[in-house]
């Protein structure tokens, strides 16, 4: 919203005031102003929550007080549009040069440094391996890239922070990584930071290709649990990079209401390519990469629903997956289904899903939910409803439907990904709402 206000103020010279819930205003007038917007937009703070509240509550907010100034809300709005600018609001000028961070921290004891790292919010609050020069130098042996090479300039959530190979290697050391993990971590660094939303989102990291074995990743039993060094540590490194180079700090730049436990490891695992049914391509091959290329794919989502029990003869897995997918928001038609090789084999050999795409197509055509339920999700309402208002189909039609009308919300089968993982000790699966992005080639980071 600050960006829109800046446009009106700067480009069109129209005095503007923004009205927001108290949960947003601190970020908007603090970090966002300093590092992103640069324009000290005037804000009015209403009690949270605002969106989705009944008209009677909105009336109380308007009749009540602005939580920033303490004035009656409407008087505060009038003042924001008419009170002369302060000297601070007139400041114009280029951004100051970023103050460089010292490469080395002052020498200290292990105990004090562990405490410092936590005080600076550089960790996930489990102890870290301290990144001595010797350890970082050893880590950097895992790549041919130079330490000062910039992987990306991290601009979200504001500012511009150069994430170098050395900074990524520092996080890798802190997380407990081995040099052979570093190419995966550097490819992963291109996706820093992890999902950051008041809605408490999380990430998923899927690794494909030969590097799974080279790094010792586990695609089999317990792949998603704490039973493998590479899976655990690579996922943790993503968190540490997101908090350091990503600049994500609680109630400064990160405002998740509940938070998400998946952010400790980011659902990091390798696909069990060796036990895919014939005709089911690995995820990276589906994206157009070659089978012998190594690729990391990062997804963003929130939810993770287990089948709980094993597959039943009388109610095949694709039907139960369909049922459970009704609980997902279907935002962007996105879902990622994680399944044990035994489930994949059953779906292929007994139920005739000869490819992952056939299963995705079937789910797209068979998952249904009511229009009311679909539009009842605020993320869907924010994004898809605006498409409906622009007349884009099928959203425009869905928006006009009666509440109880059934729609097929996963209307784009390519948004449904199937990933095979697990150790064949139970025929179970997870339905998730993670939206996988484009895979990143790991080989170029060796």
């Amino acid at each position, binding site marked *: 919203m600050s960006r829109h206000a800046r446009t009106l103020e700067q480009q069109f010279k129209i005095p503007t005031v923004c009205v927001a819930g108290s949960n947003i205003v601190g970020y908007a007038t603090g970090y966002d102003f300093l590092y992103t917007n640069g324009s000290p937009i005037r804000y009015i703070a209403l009690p949270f929550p605002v969106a989705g509240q009944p008209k009677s509550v909105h009336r109380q907010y308007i009749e009540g007080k602005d939580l920033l100034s303490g004035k009656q809300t409407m008087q505060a709005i009038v003042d924001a549009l008419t009170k002369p600018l302060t000297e601070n609001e007139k400041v114009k000028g280029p951004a100051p040069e970023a103050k460089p961070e010292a490469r080395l921290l002052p020498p200290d004891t292990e105990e004090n440094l562990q405490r410092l790292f936590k005080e600076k919010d550089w960790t996930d609050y489990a102890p870290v391996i301290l990144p001595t020069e010797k350890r970082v130098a050893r880590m950097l042996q895992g790549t041919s890239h130079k330490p000062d090479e910039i992987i990306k300039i991290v601009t979200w959530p504001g*500012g511009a*922070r150069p994430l170098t190979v050395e900074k990524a290697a520092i996080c890798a050391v802190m997380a407990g990584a081995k040099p052979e993990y570093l190419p995966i971590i550097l490819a992963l660094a291109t996706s820093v930071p992890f999902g950051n939303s008041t809605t408490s989102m999380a990430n998923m990291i899927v690794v494909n290709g030969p590097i799974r074995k080279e790094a010792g990743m586990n695609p089999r039993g317990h792949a998603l649990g704490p039973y493998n060094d590479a899976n655990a540590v690579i996922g943790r490194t993503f968190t540490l990079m997101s908090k350091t180079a990503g600049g994500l700090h609680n109630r400064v730049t990160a405002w998740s209401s509940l938070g998400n436990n998946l952010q400790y490891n980011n659902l990091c695992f390798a696909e069990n390519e060796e036990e895919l049914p014939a005709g089911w391509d690995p995820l990276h091959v589906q994206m157009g990469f070659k089978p012998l290329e190594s690729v990391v794919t990062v997804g963003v989502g929130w939810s993770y629903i287990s089948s709980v029990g094993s597959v039943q003869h009388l109610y095949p897995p694709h039907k139960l997956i369909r049922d459970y997918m009704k609980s997902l928001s279907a935002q962007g038609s996105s879902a990622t289904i994680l399944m044990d090789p035994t489930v994949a084999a059953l779906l292929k050999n007994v139920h005739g899903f000869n490819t992952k795409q056939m299963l995705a197509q079937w789910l797209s055509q068979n998952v249904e939910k009511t229009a009311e339920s679909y539009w009842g999700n605020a993320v869907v309402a924010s994004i898809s409803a605006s498409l409906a208002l622009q007349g884009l189909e099928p959203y425009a039609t869905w928006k006009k439907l009666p509440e109880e009308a059934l729609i097929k919300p996963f209307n784009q089968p390519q948004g449904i990904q199937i990933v095979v993982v697990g150790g064949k000790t139970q025929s179970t699966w997870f339905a998730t709402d993670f939206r996988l992005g484009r895979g990143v080639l790991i080989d170029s980071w060796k």
Partner: protein
Amino acid sequence: MKRKFLIFGCPFLIAVLLVVAFGFSQSDSAPLTTVLSPAVANKLAERLPLAPRLDTLEGKTVYMVDINWGGPEAALSIFEEMQAWFAKNMPTVKTVIKMKRGGYEADDPALWKEIKDSRGDAAILGVSG
């Protein structure tokens, strides 16, 4: 009294001194480590001033723009309440409610131009949260 101190107080004092001395020697002898900083320098945004404010809103046109946070119905009634307040308390103020196109982050250049071309004097944007 003196005897009691020798029996009970003296060993206690020695124990305290030993603990303190041991503690200090532990702290003093802990090796110092030099480590690399994971911190990454951040860059401040270019400063841009606000537009000059109006002398008064009386007789002016105020655009109220719903940015579509939470969907088109989520916060529209906030603007309706504002509109009612202006009608009652500042009736010379003309208010226009507009819905921005796209998601709440999407730019809507056509709307900003419309506000300017329609001689909008001020704008109220909302409502996130």
